[in-house]
């Protein structure tokens, strides 16, 4: 996976799994320092595992504690299916 970053938006590409957690966490922490409202673009993510989902949840809670929110943007089909199966689509704001 690699992550590109613009103002308060992270674009994730490739597999998002346990191996990518540290990179995602550090980029998210940087983004939250700028603004607690962070958009995470998932349209180019091919696969997401439960560890990565937990990291998204952790990020969402962190953003909310800071007075903002974490918005999932355009999740790809594999990601959308996982979000629906786990009912996590009810916990996140999805744009």
């Amino acid at each position, binding site marked *: 996976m690699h992550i590109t970053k613009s103002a308060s938006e992270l674009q994730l590409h490739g597999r998002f799994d*346990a191996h990518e957690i540290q990179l995602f966490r550090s980029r998210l922490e940087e983004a939250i320092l700028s603004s607690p409202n962070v958009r995470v673009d998932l349209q180019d993510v091919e696969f997401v*595992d439960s560890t990565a989902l*937990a990291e998204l949840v952790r990020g969402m809670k962190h953003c909310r504690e800071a007075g903002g929110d974490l918005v999932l943007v355009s999740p790809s089909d594999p990601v959308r299916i996982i979000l629906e*199966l*786990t*009912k*996590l689509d009810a916990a996140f704001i999805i744009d």
Partner: protein
Amino acid sequence: MTADNAQIESLVGALVDANDQLLALYDLASITADSLDESEVVGRILSRAQGLLRADALLLATEPEHAIGNAVDVAKLRLGQADRSEQGLSTSAVATVSSPDGNPVAVSALRHDNPFGTADTKLLEAVAKMLAGAVHTARLHETAVAQAVINRDHDTASKLAQSALPKWLPELDGVDLFARSEPARSAGGDLYTFAVVDGILHFSVGDVSGKGLPAAMMMTNVISASNAAFQRHGPEGPVAILEAIDRWVYQSLSDAGLFVTILVGSYNPASNELAVVNAGHSPVVFKDATGITTLGACAPPVGVLPLDNLEALSRIVAPGDRLVVASDGLTEQQSPAGEMFGDDRLDKLIETDTCSNAAEFGALLFDRIEMFADVAPQSDDRTLFILEFGETP
């Protein structure tokens, strides 16, 4: 020309001294092979080297701010800054080298008189290099021993965590049960547990996010909470059981940045009623005479947000019906080509299976996953829980 007695005596003395020095050098070189204890090795090298150098004091500093023990019990001397005045030591030599890990190592030699010569300085440098190597080796050994202790404790904790999974199957007329969990590492976050309370079978099947010991430790918490909830809230049904589990484990999951997908169910053989409530778990498939149905989640996993508006799915089961609850480690297993086993293959196996009982079908499913994986490694925990319903008394 003949030497007088004084010259001969001096020459013999010098030869004896040289021989003693060679023996001391041999002893010095042997020390590092005898022990891996840092203070012992350093003390012995300094003691021998002090004799070789005819020094009144020999000091070792492995860090500028931290002088360690020495052979003559002179302490608290900083690197290259021997406090000579307190000891009455008038002359010194210092050798500073880099240890293999790049840290400075300094040895100071001090005498009351007789300034150190070029040969002494070279010898001191050799001693410093020997000390640097010995200290480095001793510390590597110490780190390796500490890591071995951590690894042993990790293995023990992993085994303890896995032992929280039930080793028995419930005996209840009208239902045949298969349960197996295979962690990807020594410890995993997948779980199942069950209990028969007042003739009703209650069960939980779940998957704690993440991997390794943290997930495994949380898994044991969820099993304990499930077992307690079966006893305390069993008569109220699976929604009350799941709400109790949520109350007991939500905060610790949230604090750890984890969640658990979990399906809780109750089966009453007297009424043939099966009720389940699903918080984020997948795949869950029910098979009856009409085909297969995926039982979707009605709430996010436990630990994400406090649960509310839970709703149980309830149905009357018939002989031959089957409930299959797996973990994503089964469906996400990859082939050597990188293809995932997937929900469709699992659904097809469940739909077309003709096995005579739950255990036979469970074994078949694990075999099919193994065949699919071939030489590809197991990427996640694999758990399978099957209830096959039969004739009730």
